[in-house]
C-alpha cells in the first residue's frame, strides 16, 4: 500500500495511529466518511428494524413482568437507533436521506432481523444470541476512531448488557420448565444459532473492506476473530441451559484453545442479504407503513411549532 498520501491524509493517518479521535469538522478522506456513513446508518437501521420481531411479542408476553421488560428493551432499541442516526448525521447525511435509503432498499440492515420470531422462546434466544453477537461486535466499536460513533457505542453498550441478561434469564426459566417448554427452547436455539453466526459478516478473505477499516481503526477486530470469540462463549453458556448448539462439528480444540465449528451456509446469508429472507418484505413494509402513517403527525407538529413561534413573535413585538 505504498501510495503517495496528501499532507492532510498523512496528518489524518498520524492522528489515527496516535489514537486521537476524529471529530465531525476535522478533515477526513472521503472514503472514510462514506464507509462510516454506510456502517453507522446500517447499524442504526438494524436497531430500528430490530424492534419489529420483538414488537411481535409485546402483547403476548407470558407475564406482566416479562412484558414490562420487553417494552423497555424495545424502547432501548429505538434509542440506540437514534444515537446512531445522530452520529451519522454529523458526517453530513440527513436523517430523511437515511430513511429514504432504508425504505427503498438501498441501505441494508442486519440480515438477522429477516427471520421470524415464532415462539416466546425466540424472545429469550434473541436476547442471548442476537444481542450477544451484537455486543461482541459493539464493545470494540466503543474505541472506534470516529468520536461521535464511539460515544454512541459507549452509551449503547452500557444498555445492551441488560438485553442479553434478560434474555438468558428468561431462557433459564424455560430450561427448568415442562418438557414442552424445554423442547420450545431447544427449537429456538436451533433456528437462531446459524443466523447469529452470520451476523459477524463474511469470512475475512471474503471481506475486502476489512483491511482499510482496520487501518483507519473503524474496526478493531476482523469478522472471523469476533465470530470465534462468540462461539467459544456460547458453547459454554448453552450447557447451563441443558441444551445443545445445532452443530455436529462443534468441539473443543485444545491445540488452538478455541472451539472448532462447522461450515456456515453462506448461500443462505447472501440470499437473505439480497432480499429473499423469510421476512424481508414484511419488515420493510411495516417500516414504510409506520413512516407513511406518521406523516400527518410530523406535519401537525411542524404546523403547531410555527404557529407558536408566530404567536411569540407577535407578543414580543
Amino acid at each position, binding site marked *: 500500500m505504498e501510495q503517495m498520501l496528501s499532507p492532510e491524509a498523512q496528518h489524518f493517518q498520524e492522528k489515527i495511529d496516535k489514537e486521537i479521535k476524529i471529530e465531525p469538522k476535522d478533515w477526513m478522506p472521503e472514503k472514510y466518511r462514506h464507509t462510516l456513513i454506510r456502517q453507522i446508518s446500517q447499524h442504526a437501521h438494524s436497531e430500528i428494524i430490530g424492534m419489529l420481531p420483538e414488537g411481535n411479542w409485546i402483547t403476548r408476553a407470558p407475564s406482566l413482568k416479562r412484558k414490562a421488560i420487553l417494552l423497555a428493551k424495545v424502547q432501548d432499541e429505538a434509542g440506540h437507533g437514534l444515537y446512531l442516526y445522530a452520529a451519522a448525521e454529523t458526517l453530513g447525511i440527513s436523517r430523511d436521506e437515511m430513511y429514504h435509503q432504508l425504505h427503498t432498499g438501498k441501505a441494508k440492515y442486519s440480515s438477522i432481523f429477516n427471520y421470524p420470531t415464532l415462539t416466546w422462546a425466540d424472545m429469550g434466544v434473541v436476547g442471548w444470541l442476537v444481542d450477544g453477537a451484537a455486543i461482541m461486535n459493539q464493545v470494540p466499536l466503543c474505541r472506534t476512531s470516529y468520536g461521535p460513533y464511539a460515544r454512541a457505542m459507549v452509551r449503547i453498550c452500557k444498555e445492551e448488557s441488560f438485553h442479553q441478561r434478560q434474555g438468558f434469564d428468561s431462557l433459564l426459566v424455560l430450561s427448568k420448565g415442562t418438557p414442552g417448554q424445554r423442547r420450545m427452547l431447544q427449537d429456538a436455539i436451533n433456528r437462531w444459532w446459524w443466523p447469529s453466526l452470520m451476523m459477524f459478516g463474511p469470512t475475512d478473505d471474503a471481506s475486502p473492506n476489512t483491511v482499510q477499516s482496520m487501518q483507519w481503526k473503524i474496526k478493531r477486530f476482523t469478522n472471523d476473530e469476533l465470530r470465534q470469540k462468540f462461539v467459544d462463549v456460547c458453547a459454554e453458556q448453552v450447557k447451563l441451559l441443558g441444551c445443545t448448539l445445532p452443530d455436529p462439528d462443534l468441539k473443543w480444540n485444545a491445540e488452538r484453545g478455541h472451539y472448532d465449528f462447522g461450515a456456515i451456509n453462506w448461500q443462505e446469508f447472501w440470499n437473505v442479504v439480497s432480499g429473499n429472507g423469510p421476512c424481508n418484505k414484511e419488515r420493510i413494509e411495516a417500516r414504510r407503513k409506520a413512516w407513511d402513517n406518521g406523516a400527518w403527525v410530523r406535519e401537525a407538529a411542524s404546523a403547531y411549532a410555527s404557529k407558536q*413561534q408566530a404567536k411569540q413573535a407577535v407578543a414580543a413585538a
Partner: protein
Amino acid sequence: MNTTIRILRYGDYDAMQKAGSNIPATNSSNHATSTAPEWPLWEVFVRSKQGLDHKHVGSLHAADAAMAIENARDVYTRRQEGVSIWVVESKYIHASNPDEADSFYEPASDKVYRHPTFYDLPEAIKHM
C-alpha cells in the same frame, strides 16, 4: 451505492440557513412518501446531578423546544441519567475551526508559569 452527500456540520448550520428556516432537502427529491421537511436538529445537554455542569450528550430532531426536551428525556435519560436538560437548535451553535486549532490555541502553549507546579518553594511551606 452512489450517494451524493451535502455536508452539514454543526458549525455550518448557521452559515447555511437563516434562523427559523428549515434545512433544505438533500439530493433525494424523489422521496417515495413524505415531502415535508425534517424537523430541526437540536443539541442536548444533560446535568447528571445537582451541582454538576450540563454536558453535551448528543442530538435529536424535534418540531419545537418543548418536544425536544421531552424527546431528550426519553432518549437520553431512560435510566435516571439526568435531573436537568438543556436543548439548543444546532444551527445556533458556533464552533472554533479545527483547521486553525494549532494557531488558535498556540498562545497558551508557552506559558508554563500559569501552573502552580512551575514554582519551587521551600519545603517548610507545606500548604500553598
